[in-house]
């Protein structure tokens, strides 16, 4: 397996910049997930790596060798397309054998070797019984496995996967998430994996590269994306329901810090030994709190905001509660308890001040993270 180095790549389409000065390294055997909303430039980045798009500027190195101007058929990368891109006139077996029959690999693979390899991968993906079918006779999940099989069948230097499980149904997606991870580990592959689903990104990636408008926002391990996010964008991207954000002013009070939420007419008090917080004193900050770090009560406690419980949605193992507070603002709360009796009644939401995040009000960059889980 191989190390991929991406240096300052930029891709313009006419006047629009799809990828802007992006740099990162993917170490041998590492899985990096590219996470970002629709139109963030994830797929374009992948296409640049594959050689399907010409770079406007920048370089791509594979094991130290500059591959920026090498055509896709000589890059030795395998790519999985979001729409599977199966060859409709070929059977599953022919689809999977196709990369092995390429002119550059003709010497390496004879007929027996091809059959053996296809069989091996088909068994790994549990599609052995489908080998003689045509893609039109396959279900979505089977097509996805076939496309994955075609990607895995040759031993490329790097795997590029574009939303490989996005179009599967929920049950299958959940199962494939685990399977993908174990397949990558089994094969020891270097993988670049594109997804817009933060759960997928966090569970599959060794590191997660968050991208916005073609620019790198944060490249970090899953825990850091979740608890030490660089800015509000990352905080909102990871988490469902998304993080709650309030505007407030930071004060110091008897050695503690206090955020005055003017609109909510509440103060959130927290302890911190972090000296650098002092420089934000008396300045406007954004307070972020994840829905699972908020509780609901009928009596006022410290660090509470009053509101009305306006909706309850039952999720698989918890409830997603919406609380209306002043000026039409909503707070999302994740709770194990169903507060059905309190629906449309005034309540208090209690913020766990140890687990808050603070962001700079101007550029929304992070300035403080509370206790990690």
């Amino acid at each position: 397996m191989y190390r991929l180095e991406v240096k300052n790549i930029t891709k313009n389409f006419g006047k629009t910049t799809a990828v802007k000065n992006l740099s990162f390294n993917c170490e041998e055997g590492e899985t990096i997930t590219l996470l970002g909303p629709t139109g963030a430039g994830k797929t374009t980045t992948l296409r640049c790596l594959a050689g399907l798009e010409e770079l406007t500027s920048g370089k791509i190195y594979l094991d130290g060798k500059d591959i920026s101007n090498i055509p896709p058929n000589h890059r030795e990368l395998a790519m999985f397309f979001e729409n599977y891109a199966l060859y409709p006139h070929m059977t599953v077996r022919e689809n999977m054998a196709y990369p092995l029959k390429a002119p550059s690999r003709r010497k390496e693979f004879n007929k027996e070797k091809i059959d053996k390899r296809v069989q091996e991968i088909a068994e790994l993906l549990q599609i052995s019984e489908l080998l003689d079918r045509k893609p039109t006779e396959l279900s979505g999940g089977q097509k996805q496995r076939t496309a994955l099989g075609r990607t895995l069948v040759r031993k490329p230097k790097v795997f590029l996967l574009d939303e490989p499980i996005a179009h599967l149904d929920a049950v299958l997606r959940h199962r494939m998430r685990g399977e993908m991870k174990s397949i990558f580990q089994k094969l020891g592959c270097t993988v670049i994996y594109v997804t817009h689903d933060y759960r997928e990104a966090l569970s599959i990636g060794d590191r997660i590269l968050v991208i916005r408008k073609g620019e790198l926002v944060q490249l970090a391990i899953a825990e850091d994306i979740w608890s030490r996010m660089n800015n509000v964008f990352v905080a909102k991207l990871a988490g469902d329901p998304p993080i709650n954000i309030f505007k407030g002013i930071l004060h110091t009070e008897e050695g503690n810090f206090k955020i005055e939420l003017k609109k909510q007419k509440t103060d959130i008090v927290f302890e911190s030994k972090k000296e650098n917080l002092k420089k934000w004193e008396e300045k406007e900050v954004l307070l972020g709190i994840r829905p699972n770090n908020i509780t609901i009560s009928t009596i006022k406690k410290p660090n509470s905001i009053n509101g009305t419980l306006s909706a309850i949605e039952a999720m698989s193992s918890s409830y997603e509660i919406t609380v209306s507070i002043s000026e039409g603002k909503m707070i999302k709360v994740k709770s194990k308890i169903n507060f059905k009796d309190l629906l449309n009644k005034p309540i208090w939401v209690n913020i766990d001040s140890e687990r808050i995040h603070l962001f700079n009000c101007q550029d929304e960059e992070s300035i403080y993270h509370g206790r990690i889980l």
Partner: protein
Amino acid sequence: MDETKNIKTKVILYILLFIVAVVILFPFVWIFLTSLKTAGDITCYPPKFIFDASWDNYKSLFKTSQTGAAASTLNFSRYYINSLIIAGFGTLLSLIIGFGAGYTLTRAKFKKESTRENVAFTLISFWFGPELAIILPLYIFFNKLNLLDNHLALILAYQLIGIPFTIWLSRSFFSDVPASVEESSRIDGYTALQTFWKITFPMVKSGLAATAILTFIFEWNNFLFALVIGGRNTMPVTTGALGFISYEAALWGQMAAAIILSSIPQLIIAMFAQKNMARGLTFGAVKG
């Protein structure tokens, strides 16, 4: 109850289909019967449906020594060969250029996306233009080149119909092939040309076959170009059949025989390629 209803619908359906078949086939049957009649039987009124059939009209088409002023100038086998040469090579040229252009207009990257449509529309619009509007300039053009009554001139003139048509139709087939399928093949280790032959071509071949057949039929049936630019040596069957009407007499029987013979290649091709035609023409509409 349901079964009787089913039978009823079927009966109605078959009656309707029969009517359609009669309407479509009647001229064809009429011409065929005419081709088997003698001159007396053809012109008699009311028309005879029962008569002594003979192949004389067909035989006379290929006889060298004929009587009458009109017949003496006729050389049907020559017209036939001319048609095959002109329509055959014309189609070949249309396909080579048209498919190439169709594919390029589908896949090539243009600086401005509107350029693609503008170029395509300009090329395709040649097809909309009435032949009559260009026939005189074309006559002068080929006259200056000293190419009148030359097979090459007709083959080139036919490209005015053939190329826009093949571009238009093949482009719609090529654009039904997802770009990602071709890209996938490129990443799998194949060059652009190998990808075209191994992936794109098999996916569009029914469509291209349908295009080829229709192009051949259009070019085979062309009359005006052959009439103006062609001449004694290059006359195809379409204008050749005109020769049966002369100052002295109209040889209806021979003309009918000539028409029947000249439609045979199209019939054979259409029958042979019926499956491809149907698949090709519905290619874009029905996706698997």
